[in-house]
C-alpha cells in the first residue's frame, strides 16, 4: 500500500519543485548567457559578461546595487533600533490604548506603498529631500519601522519584565538595565528586526520611484528598466542579485527554526 502511494507523491513533489524553482533556474541560465533566441530551449552562448559589472564600478547596475545595499542597511539599523523602543512602549500599554497603538503602528504596513509614496512626497519634497538618498532612506524607514514596531510588540508581549525590575532593585540605573540586561536578552530579535527592515527597503519600488524622482536609482528600479528595454540577460542578473540576501536570510531563519524543532522543514 505504501509503495503504491509513493509513486504519485514523488511525481507531485517533482511538480512542486519545478513550479517553485523553475523561474529561478531560468534567471540563473539567463544571467550566464548572452544569446538565447526563440525557439531554442537552451542558451546559444554561455558567458559571464552579465556579471562583469561586479569588477567595473562605472556601470549603472553596480551603482544601483550599492545604493540599494546602503538604503537597506540604513533602514535596517534605524528601524530595528527605533522599533525596539517603540514596541517596548506600546507593549506596556493595556486595554483600548494598546489596541489603538497597535492599530496605529499597523498603518505604515497596511497602507499600499504607492498611496504612502504619494502621501509622503509632499512633506519630503518640501523638506528638500526629493531626489536625494536621504529622502528615499527616510521614506523606506516609514514602512520598515511599522513592521519592526509590530515585531517588537510581539516580542515584548512575552518578555519577562521582572528581569528589568530585578536589575533596578539591585541598583542599576535605566541605562545600565538597557545595556546590560534588556539588549543582551534581545540580541536575537534585534538581528531579526534588522533583517526585516533591510528586506522592506531592499524590495521597495514605489517609494524609491516617487521620492527618488529618478535620481536615486536602486536595483529593483534598474531591473524594471531592463525588463522594459527587453534586456532579459541583465534583468535576470539583477533579479538574482536581488534574490540572494532574502534567500540567505530564509536559509538562516530556516536553520534556526529547525534548531527550535518547529515544522517548516
Amino acid at each position: 500500500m505504501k509503495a503504491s502511494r509513493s509513486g504519485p507523491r514523488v511525481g507531485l513533489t517533482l511538480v512542486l519543485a519545478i513550479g517553485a524553482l523553475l523561474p529561478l533556474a531560468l534567471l540563473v541560465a539567463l544571467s550566464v548567457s548572452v544569446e538565447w533566441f526563440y525557439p531554442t530551449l537552451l542558451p546559444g552562448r554561455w558567458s559571464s559578461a552579465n556579471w562583469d559589472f561586479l569588477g567595473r564600478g562605472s556601470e549603472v547596475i553596480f551603482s544601483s546595487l550599492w545604493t540599494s545595499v546602503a538604503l537597506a542597511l540604513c533602514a535596517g539599523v534605524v528601524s530595528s533600533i527605533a522599533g525596539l523602543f517603540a514596541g517596548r512602549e506600546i507593549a506596556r500599554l493595556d486595554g483600548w490604548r494598546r489596541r489603538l497603538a497597535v492599530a496605529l503602528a499597523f498603518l505604515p504596513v497596511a497602507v499600499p506603498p504607492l498611496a504612502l509614496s504619494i502621501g509622503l512626497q509632499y512633506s519630503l519634497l518640501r523638506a528638500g529631500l526629493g531626489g536625494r538618498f536621504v529622502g528615499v532612506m527616510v521614506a523606506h524607514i516609514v514602512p520598515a519601522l511599522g513592521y519592526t514596531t509590530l515585531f517588537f510588540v510581539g516580542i515584548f508581549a512575552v518578555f519577562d519584565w521582572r528581569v528589568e525590575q530585578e536589575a533596578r532593585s539591585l541598583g542599576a540605573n535605566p541605562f545600565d538595565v538597557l545595556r546590560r540586561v534588556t539588549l543582551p536578552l534581545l540580541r536575537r530579535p534585534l538581528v531579526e528586526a534588522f533583517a526585516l527592515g533591510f528586506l522592506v527597503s531592499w524590495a521597495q519600488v514605489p517609494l524609491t520611484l516617487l521620492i527618488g524622482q529618478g535620481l536615486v536609482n536602486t536595483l529593483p528600479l534598474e531591473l524594471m528598466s531592463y525588463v522594459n528595454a527587453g534586456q532579459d540577460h541583465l534583468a535576470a542578473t539583477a533579479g538574482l542579485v536581488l534574490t540572494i540576501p532574502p534567500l540567505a536570510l530564509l536559509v538562516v531563519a530556516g536553520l534556526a527554526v529547525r534548531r527550535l524543532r518547529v515544522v517548516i522543514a
Partner: protein
Amino acid sequence: MRGLLVAILVAGPVLAGIAYSMLGALGVVGPGASGVSLRHLQVVLADSATWWGLLWTVWIALASTLLATILAMGTAVAFRAERGVDRFARLVAVVPLAVPHVVAALGAVLVLSQSGLLARLAFAANLQTSPADMPPLIYDRYGIGLILALSWKEFPFLALIAFSVIARRGALLEETARSLGAGPLQTFRVATLPALWRGLLPSMIAVFTFVAGNYEVAALLAPSSPLALPLLTMERYTDSALDVRGEAFVLVLLAMAVSLCGVAAHEWTANKFEAAE
C-alpha cells in the same frame, strides 16, 4: 500614555500623508490646487476607468489569493508526514517567499511571454511554430500572468501557516472525526478543511490586501486596458496636465479605503478565531 505617543510618531508620516491626500482630493493642496472644490472627486467618481480599475484589481487580488490558498492547502495536506520526501517538498514550497515581488514579475515575463520558456516548450513539442501562436498570458485582459505571478509569490506564506495548522491541530481533529466514524473524504471535509480555513483566513485577507495594493508586479505584467488601480493612480499622478494630478489623491484615498477594509476584516476574523480556539 507614552506608548500612545510613540505609536502616533510611528504612524505620523502616514497620518500626515492621509491628511495631505484628503486635502489634495479637495483641491486645497498639491499640483494644480485651485481652492476647495469637489471637482476632483466628481471627475474620478464619474470616470468609468476608476470603477473598471477597482473591479479589475479586486478580481486579480481575489483570484490570486484563492489560487495561492488552494495551492497552500494542497501542499500542506499532501506533504504532511515526516518522511524525507515530505520535508523536501515543504522546504521547496517556501523558496518563493524569499523572492522579491519585482523578481517574481520578471520570472513571469520570462516563463509566460510569447517567446518565453513555455512558448519554447510548446515549440519543442510541435504545438506551435511562431510566438504569435502562443496565447497572450502577460499584458492580457484577464491578468492571467499577473495572477500566476502573484499566487506563485504569495503561496509559500500561506503554505507555512497551513503546515503549522496541520501539525498543531490536524491530527487530533482528524482522529476525533475518524473515531466518530467519518471516512477519509468526510474527515477532510469536517475536520481538516475547517481547521485550515480558520487558520488561514486572516492571512488570506492580508494577502488579498497586499496584492491589491502592489504596484511593481502590475507595472510589469498588467495590460494597459483595463488599467489596474495602482497603475491608474500613477498615471494620473504623473500626468502632464497638472489639474489631472489632483485626481490621483482621490484614487489614493480609494486604495487606502480598500486596504483599511482589509485590515478591519483581518482583525475581525483573527479575533473571532482566536476566541474560538
